[in-house]
């Protein structure tokens, strides 16, 4: 326990975090590529077809829609957790993490909306349906964009960090409220319960879970890339950053 605690503290040091993420990144990318290759083989080639209502191949869209939607939620929750860590323990690197999740999270939200809409056309016959999940996803996109806009509106970084951290926390309290409100509103205006319930048939599970795992890792890799840039951005004047930048330049000229 004490060890874990110490490690958590070390992560608060920009230099340590930058070095560690540098070591992890190739491994994460490797695993991502393998999982995605397998996942894409299954989802684009080997997956069985959806027998219902002659929808056939449209089920393939699910294999990116579901991971994107899951990551959009997980991303926002992760942002809020990091925001709490930052505000409570005054850990500056946590704010860098919050800021780094936002673009990837917003991208996932956008993809969930886009694929949902493209999936909706052949299945429901319309590009947009005010279905509970799609509506919540749309509001989630607004929350992400609001976060990014707020963070970009301050000239002082520490203010930007703290204010947008509070917004992330307020937003995460609201996500379930928004979701259940929209769901309730949706059943009121019934007829649009398009997302059928019921367990996923086992033959769809293998491609879906592989794609889920692959997309999670891809998300993590993107967040880490952004985080590394953010760490440098925030520590431009530290000696170790200068050493990192110049050491590499020397190596290049030697080659």
């Amino acid at each position, binding site marked *: 326990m004490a060890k874990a605690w110490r490690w958590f*503290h070390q992560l*608060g*040091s920009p230099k340590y975090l930058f070095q560690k993420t540098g070591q992890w990144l190739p491994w994460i990318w490797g695993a991502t590529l393998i999982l995605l290759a397998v996942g894409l083989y299954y989802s684009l080639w080997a997956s069985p077809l959806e027998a219902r209502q002659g929808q056939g191949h449209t089920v393939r869209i699910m294999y990116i829609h579901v991971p994107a939607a899951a990551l959009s939620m997980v991303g926002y929750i992760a942002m809020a957790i990091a925001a709490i860590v930052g505000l409570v*323990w*005054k*850990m*500056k690197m946590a704010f860098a993490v919050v800021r780094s999740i936002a673009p990837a999270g917003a991208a996932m939200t956008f993809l969930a909306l886009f694929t949902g809409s493209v999936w909706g056309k052949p299945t429901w016959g319309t590009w947009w349906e005010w279905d509970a999940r799609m509506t919540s996803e749309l509001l989630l996109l607004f929350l992400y964009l609001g976060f990014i806009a707020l963070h970009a509106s301050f*000239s*002082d*970084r*520490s203010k930007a960090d703290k204010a947008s951290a509070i917004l992330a926390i307020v937003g995460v309290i609201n996500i379930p409220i928004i979701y259940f409100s929209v769901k309730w509103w949706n059943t009121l205006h019934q007829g649009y319960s398009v997302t059928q319930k019921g367990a996923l048939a086992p033959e769809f599970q293998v491609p879906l879970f592989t794609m889920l795992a692959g997309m999670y890792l891809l998300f993590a890799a993107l967040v880490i890339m952004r985080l590394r840039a953010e760490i440098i951005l*925030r520590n*431009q*004047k530290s000696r170790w950053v200068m050493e990192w930048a110049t050491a590499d330049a020397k190596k290049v000229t030697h080659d």
Partner: protein
Amino acid sequence: MPSLSSMSQSQDIQFDGLYAHELTVSRSENVLLEDAELHLAPATITYLYGENGTGKTSLMRCLTGLLQPDDGKIYWNKKPINHPESGYFQDLIFLAHSLSMKNELTIAENLTFYAQLRCGGSYNNKELQADISQVLTDLGIGGLEGRMFAELSAGQQHKVALARLMLEPAKIWILDEPFVNLDQKTRGWLAAKTLEFKAQGGVVLFTSHHHIDELPVDQKVGVEHE
């Protein structure tokens, strides 16, 4: 990065008055101040000098607790200023560059509000109004109590802000550029009142562009490059 262990460590602070320990202040990536130590003892006047943009105001705002330092702690009578027992915010009057008065309220209403906010109901309203008239008369703007703040000239508005120092009991004054744009008479008044406050054991920190001839200081502090 303050680690948890060092934050829980209780250090024995020997100094009365205001004491800043290992203070690091930065704005975005610019470190304005690093590992600063500053002690403002009771019954002393400290003059904070330096050009604009050197972090004077940031240091001052840090000492009022409004700006969170990146590192370091500030103690008031040996207790961290945010500790409820330190009573720091009861004891502090901070006059910022902005005058903090509402245009929509009269002078008397503005001053009454701050006095009541600080003292609660303990300040008898009749006494308070009498005190306000007295201070305004001393400042040469007697009889203007009922005027809206917005109707005053800049110089008069400044005087109203200074009047707070006489109306609210305090043990420490932190004043941002109090002497700027003051006429000769009011400068003398403020210097005399500051010395009086010091004689009662008060702590004073003020900034200024120039040396103030009327006010002998005990300590000079400047932010300097290294």
